[in-house]
């Protein structure tokens, strides 16, 4: 009997019609597409985008070249050279992040004792030439200067969870 019933079912394409009904219903469903350049999806303060280096309020760079980020980086994307500056403080002479290697895990930010290296909310960037994928110290600082208000606000919002 069940065999007969199944046979009738397949002859009248019942299950296919069920499938068509489902897609037919979704045809009229509300669409959730975010119209990207005009509309943006909401973003968490924990978003991990392009890297930046921060400065103190007096303009002094935060990074003390402790190399914790270099050590913790799972993708070996960070390269740091250290020199003593004229005033005797320990500073980086080179701080490169290779964005091709970087996996945006945020460990560098977690490990940084002075909140110098951070990942910002910036995600719209592109490279046109070979070599542009290396974020040098100057570029990192420039990103930091540009987005400092956003960065500090995000860090303040997250402070109690750290």
């Amino acid at each position, binding site marked *: 009997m069940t065999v007969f019933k199944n046979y009738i079912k397949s002859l009248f394409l019942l299950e296919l019609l069920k499938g068509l009904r489902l897609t037919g219903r*979704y045809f009229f469903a*509300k669409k959730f*597409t975010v119209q990207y350049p005009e509309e943006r999806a909401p973003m968490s303060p924990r978003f991990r985008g392009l890297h930046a280096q921060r400065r103190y309020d007096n303009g002094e760079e935060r990074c003390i070249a402790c190399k914790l980020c270099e050590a913790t980086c799972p993708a070996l994307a960070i390269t740091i050279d250290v020199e003593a500056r004229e005033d005797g403080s320990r500073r980086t002479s080179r701080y490169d992040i290779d964005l091709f290697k970087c996996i945006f895990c945020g460990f560098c930010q977690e490990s940084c004792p002075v909140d110098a290296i951070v990942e910002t909310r910036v995600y719209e960037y592109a490279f046109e030439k070979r070599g542009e994928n290396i974020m040098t110290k100057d570029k990192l600082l420039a990103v930091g200067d540009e987005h400092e208000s956003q960065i500090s606000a995000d860090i303040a919002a997250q402070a109690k969870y750290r």
Partner: protein
Amino acid sequence: MELLDSFLPHGLATVIWIVLKIVLIVLPLMVLVAYYTLAERKVIGFMQVRIGPNRVGPNGLGQPIADALKLMFKEIILPTKANKVLFLIAPLLTLGPALAAWAVFPFDAELVLADVNAGLLYILALTSVGVYGVIIAGWASNSKYALLGAVRSAAQIVSYEIAMGFAIVGVLVAAGSLNLGDIVRAQDGSLFHWFWLPLFPLLVIYFISGVAETNRAPFDVAEGESEIVAGFHVEYSGMTFAVFFLGEYANMILISALTALMFLGGWLSPFQGTFLEPVFAWVPGLVWLFLKTAIFAFLFLWFRATFPRYRYDQIMRLGWKVFIPITIVWIMVVGLAVVLELPWWFD
């Protein structure tokens, strides 16, 4: 026509007049094909809770034109060991029959390029010739994926052609003519005089076979992206690919239009025989035909958005073991009905 005849030699005027008519059919068809691709992306998008292309022009209406321009300016790559001549002829062999079939298609009671007696056979023959584009493309590309796609498609098209042919036999038994115009006239009367009701199994089989014949989802094993990359047209790029694309969509529109013609009464008004008939009398038959075609064209897209691809042996089973027996049975039913002059379809 008379105007042309007055200052041209007799035969030449006829030729020019026919060429003009061909252009009048092919140009709107090409526009229709272009916008059908947009409709496909929109409809499938909507069914997947997306909104589809909407960037080029208002609501994405410029998208087909942008696509066409892009394809025109792309490089046509000839594989080194490909058979050059056949490689370039293959796309034309797909598009050619798809366009040539419209020659006998009646758009309205008087609106037909060539009113031939064996119109239905002519269309059946041309749809079966369309397979050559696929086979030659697959072989000339000198690529194993292309060859596999071609082989799959050839076997599939040849199998489904039989079911399709039988479905058409049912229609011609019911209509008593091979002339497409006469087939429509045989359905004259009302919505319930159309052949979709007495020939419903044949309608279903004809349309599904049509989907298989055009290599569309869920019968698109000839392309089978996940198994054989893109099947027969892996090696094609730029304009040669575009011609394949045009051929495929022109075929889809052709199948939709034929289904509308044979089972939904072509250019006949759906309000015939009701009190609404005079109200809609001003609507030209071409509009009704277009609307009916649109139903089936939409079904093509709906199927693609709904069904997963068939496995190859299942396709063959469906064609040979399910469709052909059902059509044979129904042809006998129709034959009996015609002989007994069963009202009100076959009187």
